[in-house]
């Protein structure tokens, strides 16, 4: 059998199908636990419904970008393994880089060249390397996840209002790290960031003025979609 035949074999489809089913099961179990706990904490069902629907709606657009990645990955690694890798831990950039490094490490010019040569002997190496090299995060969360969260809870309760402030500002680091990098990537990136900001403000004004609370579910998804679409206009204007 060739590289491509193994990577698109019914057996691999079956195994990946099981893996995907497991991911959904794991999410459902965690969802059930967290939902029950949220109700115990006094969060209303209406608010939880809002969280669920807005999370689901928001996730559609970025997920479509993952599907686009699936197409490029599937052409060199076959459909099922690409499907599994993009559903578990991976990202398109990592997977393509990993596959390419394995291919060059085994003497081929690129993963596309490996696929074209049909060398089945490296299938195991490709799959193992792609899995092992991304496991650092999983092992770290296994070892330190609970400790990090407990440390924060302890800091919050021990230091009173200062503890609340310290744990409350941690999430700001996301914006501080990523926003300048996006703004400095070029004129189009800068314009897209500002466009998205304005789209959010328009949504907030509409929600406030016309009291259409249902629109809150769509703010993130609309902003992402319109922000991305605006890039096509900005490219024409700014080049």
């Amino acid at each position, binding site marked *: 059998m060739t590289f491509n035949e193994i990577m698109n074999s019914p057996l691999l489809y079956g*195994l990946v199908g099981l893996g995907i089913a497991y*991911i*959904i099961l*794991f999410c459902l*179990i*965690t969802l059930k636990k*967290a939902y029950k706990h*949220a109700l115990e904490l006094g*969060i209303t069902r209406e608010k939880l419904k809002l*969280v669920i629907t*807005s*999370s*689901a709606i*928001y996730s559609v657009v*970025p*997920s479509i970008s*993952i599907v686009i990645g699936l*197409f490029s990955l599937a052409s060199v690694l076959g459909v099922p393994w690409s499907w*599994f890798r993009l*559903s*578990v*831990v991976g990202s398109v950039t990592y997977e393509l880089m*990993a596959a390419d490094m394995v291919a060059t*490490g*085994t003497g081929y010019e690129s993963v596309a060249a490996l696929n074209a040569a049909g060398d*089945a*002997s490296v299938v*195991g*190496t490709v*799959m193992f390397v792609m*899995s092992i090299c*991304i*496991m*650092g995060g*999983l092992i770290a969360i296994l070892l*330190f*996840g*609970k400790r*990090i*969260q407990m440390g924060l809870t302890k800091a919050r309760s021990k230091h009173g209002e*200062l503890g609340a*402030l*310290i*744990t*409350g*500002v*941690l*999430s*700001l680091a*996301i*914006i501080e790290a*990523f926003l*300048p990098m*996006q703004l400095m990537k070029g004129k*189009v990136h800068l314009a897209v960031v500002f466009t998205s900001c304005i*789209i959010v403000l328009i949504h907030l004004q509409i929600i406030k003025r016309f009291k259409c609370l249902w629109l809150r579910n769509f703010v*993130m998804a609309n902003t*992402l979609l319109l922000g*991305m679409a605006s890039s*096509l206009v900005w490219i024409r204007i700014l080049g």
Partner: protein
Amino acid sequence: MDKKYEDSIHRTGRIGIIIGIILMLGIPAVISSVYDVWPESAAQVITAGSGLLAVFIPTCIAEVFSYTPILGSSAYITFLTGNVMNLKVPVVVNAQIMSDTASGTEEGDAVATIGVAVSSIVTTLIIAGGVLLLVPLRPILTSPTVQTATTYLLPALFGGIFLSFVNNDCGDYVAKGKPLTMILPLLVVFGVNAVFPLAGMEGFVVLICMVLTVLCAVVLYKAGIIKMTPKEKKKKA
């Protein structure tokens, strides 16, 4: 935090991750056994993966330390299903806004986990849909227009969530002046990125920004510039 729930959610998360790791290694093992395509040796795997390991081990570990304080218990699903920055972190921020809860609180943690679990299910189903509709969808989703637009996902995302971060909310408190803690870290990232591009080191940058933000928060609080007011007191006032 409720000890029973805390133990239970972390136990579920850890078991989930272990099964995930077994699957990640088990699938290649089954394929290698059935088709007799095992790697020639462990050395071959290490040699082929050494460059990746050198880059990704520190990066992945830094991401865990950077994002877990924000993700809380949802970190297990997040790191198992991936797409941390473009999907899971915004979902957590959005879930906490929608439910009027704050990061670092028990309520904020529960809604973050709900949001991330729902998001992961939706993404998994959409990717599965993409596999089923591979042939008809390919020409649409690989068109130059769609491909160009998707390269601007991150600026669209950060422009969209930026305003959510500029507030005085701090769990049970209102922290007047809290956005001021962002000024120094933002300037540092702008400055460093101008002379030394930070792309690819985002995990480390987030970690450094966290330290800087906390330092700024402590200094501004001690100087009396950030003022904390319990929410109950604020309501009565």
